[in-house]
């Protein structure tokens, strides 16, 4: 269960108080009625779904009730930071990013890293 810093409550709170609300920074077009099919598809259906840093929305639904944004690494599930709705994507420092990276490629699953061409015995 995640621990999420609510930028309004200024505190880390348990995930049970929150509702995930999907990708962040998808702005509803001002001229909604007039956008193209393609733009509508982009707006409503296409998602970044990054393996790495994701910008996402949460709602502190069982807390202050506010929607807010977060940057999280989708492999380590660690948050870099959360910020209020309407704020721009934060500038991230290298150190901030490195702090949330999973240990190395193919982990944490401890995936095997066997190589080819090995002889077989037995």
């Amino acid at each position, binding site marked *: 269960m995640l*621990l999420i810093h609510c930028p309004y409550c200024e505190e880390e709170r348990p995930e049970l108080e929150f509702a995930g609300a999907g990708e962040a920074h998808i702005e509803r077009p001002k001229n909604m009625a007039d956008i193209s099919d393609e733009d509508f598809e982009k707006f409503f259906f296409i998602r970044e779904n990054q393996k790495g840093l994701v910008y996402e929305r949460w709602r502190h639904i069982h807390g202050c009730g506010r929607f807010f944004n977060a940057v999280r690494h989708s492999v380590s599930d660690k948050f870099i930071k959360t910020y209020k709705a309407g704020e721009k994507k934060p500038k991230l420092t290298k150190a901030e990013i490195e702090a949330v990276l999973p240990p190395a490629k193919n982990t944490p699953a401890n995936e095997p890293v066997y190589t080819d061409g090995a002889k077989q015995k*037995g």
Partner: protein
Amino acid sequence: MAQSKRVEHVSTSTENTGANRIAGKGRLSPAKTVSFTFDGKTLTALEGDTLASALLAHGIHLVGRSFKYHRPRGILAAGPEEPNALIDISRDSARRQPNVRATVQTVYDGMIAKSQNRFPSLSFDVGVANDYLGRFIPAGFYYKTFMWPRKAWDKLYEPVIRSAAGLGIAPKEADPDHYASRFAHCDVLVVGSGAAGLTAASIAAKSGKNVIFVDENASFGGSLLSDSTSRIDGQSGQDWAKNKVTELAAMDNVTLLSRTTAFGYQSHNMVNLVEQITDHLAQPGSNLPRERMWQVRAKKVILATGAIERHLVFADNDRPGIMLASAAQTYLNQYGVTPGRSIGVYTACDSAWHAAFDLKKAGVSIVALIDCRETVNQDLINQANELGIKTMVNHAVTSTSGRLRINSMTVQPVNGENKTVIAVDCLLMSGGWTPSVHLFSQSRGRVKFDAERGIFLPDVYMEECTSVGSCNGTYDLSDAIAEAATATETALGDIGAKARKAKLPKVEDSPSMHGFLIGAAKGAGPDDFVKAFIDFQNDVTAKDIRLAVREGFQSIEHVKRYTTTGMATDQGKMSNMHGLAIAAETLDKPIPEVGLTTFRAPYTPVTFGAFVGHAKGDLFDVTRTTPMHEWAVDQGAVFEDVGNWKRAWYFPQAGEDMHAAVARECKQTREAAGIFDASTLGKIEVVGPDAVKFMNLMYTNPWDKLAVGRCRYGIMCREDGFIYDDGVVGRLSEERFHVTTTTGGAPRVLNMMEDYLQTEFPEWKVWLTSTSEQWAVIGVQGPKAREIIEPLVEGIDLSSEGLPHMSVREGKICGVPTRLFRMSFTGETGFEINVHGDYGRSVWEAVWKRGAPLGMVPYGTEAMHVMRAEKGYIIVGQDTDGTVTPHDAAVDWAIGKKKTDFVGIRGLKRKDLVAEGRRQLVGLKTRQPDYVIEEGAQIVEDPNHPVPVPMIGFVTSSYWSESLGHSIAMGVIDNGHKRMGETVYVPMKDEVIAAEICSPVFYDPEGGRVNA
């Protein structure tokens, strides 16, 4: 001579608690005994015994049968890693627990223990035939056969395989025990209470920070409890541990939890613990929960989880009487029990030497100590010689014999063939130790392989934790304590605690854990007929691993899945390293390149009930009821579940079935009046200067011109243009709307509204408040509705002019405030009386008192559904299903045609949504007027079409209309709006129903009644 003195101890063993008790050994009091039964035989144990120690005391090794070959199996370990000794334990018939590890189950008075997976008895099990057929059923054999004839898999092969597999028998009765849960927070969580854990806990506690200190065993102390030689600050390990624990127990900032397993390490430093509370008690109070699930969020976690000894892989290494050396040491030093009288020891690790010494010193005969290493520390050899133990270094045990218990072992030089057969009644073995990195691995840390010591160790940490002691590969007691001290001080520093530099205790005479063997020992093949077990419970042998590799399964995950090694209830705690090493050897690759299986929660099996905790029965889910609920209960209403709500479904009178009750409720309502509890509908108060603007965005309808005091039926879409919710909205003032939603939709509608408001239009001055439960809603519908409520209402003109259909007024009813809506979901003159929740029941009763003599009936949701269908009103979720547009549902009149924006405006313009021929809502009249079609029935044009039959729609709502005297239905049909009058067919299982497409408004299409 010292030795002969010790021998005397044996003769003084307590008589009825087992012949293998050794007086003066262990920490149990010989004065306190309990009795239990094992396979029907009554035995006496000492209080504090585990089932395993009690059985061993009585000389019982044979306790189970293996999974596949049904081989006789004995107790192998003394802790949670035990793969063999899985026992069925019961208190009574409902409190029966299969697959309990005898090594961790404390014996209590009256306990009933039974062996498992054997038929007809433990000593004679017909399943053992599999053992003799072993060569025909290697790893993965089932993938290669049982394919012909095809039908035989379901009918023959699978049932046979299934009944042979499985271990214990699942409980058959509902579990009468209850379980508890607890969220907890602490600064430092210390897992494991050996020397390292105790050191960490003690330092953390003294800093004043909050500490939770857990150990899976009944007592704190870890391996110190089994260690007979170490001295810490001049005290025995046990005394040192005891003193530390006493000190910790006295501190307010420390929570000590024994019999508590940290089994899961979740994101962001949350660790799950399960605390055993009653399973060791003879007479637990009924208030005590059986187990408690702890979810601990810790700032820092110190993992002192220790290491687990491995067995050695050689032929027939699984006979009862063959045991881990450390286990024997535990049985001796903690429980005063020797596992045999004539013991052989086979090891690749120094620690087993110490076990041999302890046993020998206690007077047990150590027949031979075989070590497969080329050389061994001379001090150990000297000590063995001193004790008179015969040592055979650079030798190996290559096979054993004895059907139900080992009776001999065959020893060969590691590099020779010369066989010596030695009679033993017990064989202790040690392949060295495997650090318990399970929790570390669960925390998504990365391990590294230490090839010199053959162990995986914590390398890169992902969570706020640190590993100390033998789980970190630090085996030496003194080093482990020092490491724990340093790590704890660092951790405390990280969380801003002041930790005084601890003075390290002086450690003397601690045993060595040097030396190891992973993979096959001599005698594990390459002769592929021998069974050298890696995974005891799943009967995986060295040759199975080799076969898997030969067949191309190269990754350890493949090997594991193909052979099932490591997938038994012990999750490979002893076997994983062996499996990996043999696979690596066969592949001729270094171990890390073959991979290590990821560890997942739980560390040891955890009861479902402990997860469930309080959430069962009444507390499985919230049951929401309205203020009038009890009245309906008293009237004998039948309820239906709608979301979390219980809603009155219908009110049967004596002798009535649902059909009759509903027909009567509808008829009475239409002829006189009906009273209906509409309290569950969602209500949202939309308030602020931008309220209209907001309503215009959220609903397809235009709201600017809705006058104060008037209501409108609103449709809400998602951006994709499909109907999301609907409801009547009343305007209370220029800046205040009373919005209603569907019962099930209330939370998501409010959430969606908040989403738009907060994130797209934060500058708008409008606020949303749920008032669903502020208001109890009493629907009064029918020609006599006005007459019924008029005398109760103050300050509102109820006439058609004063309060026309679709209006709302604020006033009083029965002297309390009301928001009185004139609206109808039945097609009759109707009112919805909103009163404050606490007054709901009383006002309802006042209305009932007025209405009953006038013929008013209470009606439930079913009659409500019938009456609204007669009027062609849709129910979102029944007549629409998330793929229906307002146009499809024939409510496109509710779309503001001049609006330039609303949620769904663009989605509705998409090609497929404006295409001709979409499924559209229509009415259906069956050709046979009394036939009520089943809801969900499909509609076709050509009922004689062969399967698959093209379907053009389906029936969404269908009822018997008592008022109309015929059945009515609604459905969605391709291009339905343009097919009025056409005949379509509804093929049922045994007949075909013809129906005519018609308007969905069946009743009072002119609307005279509703406006009356």
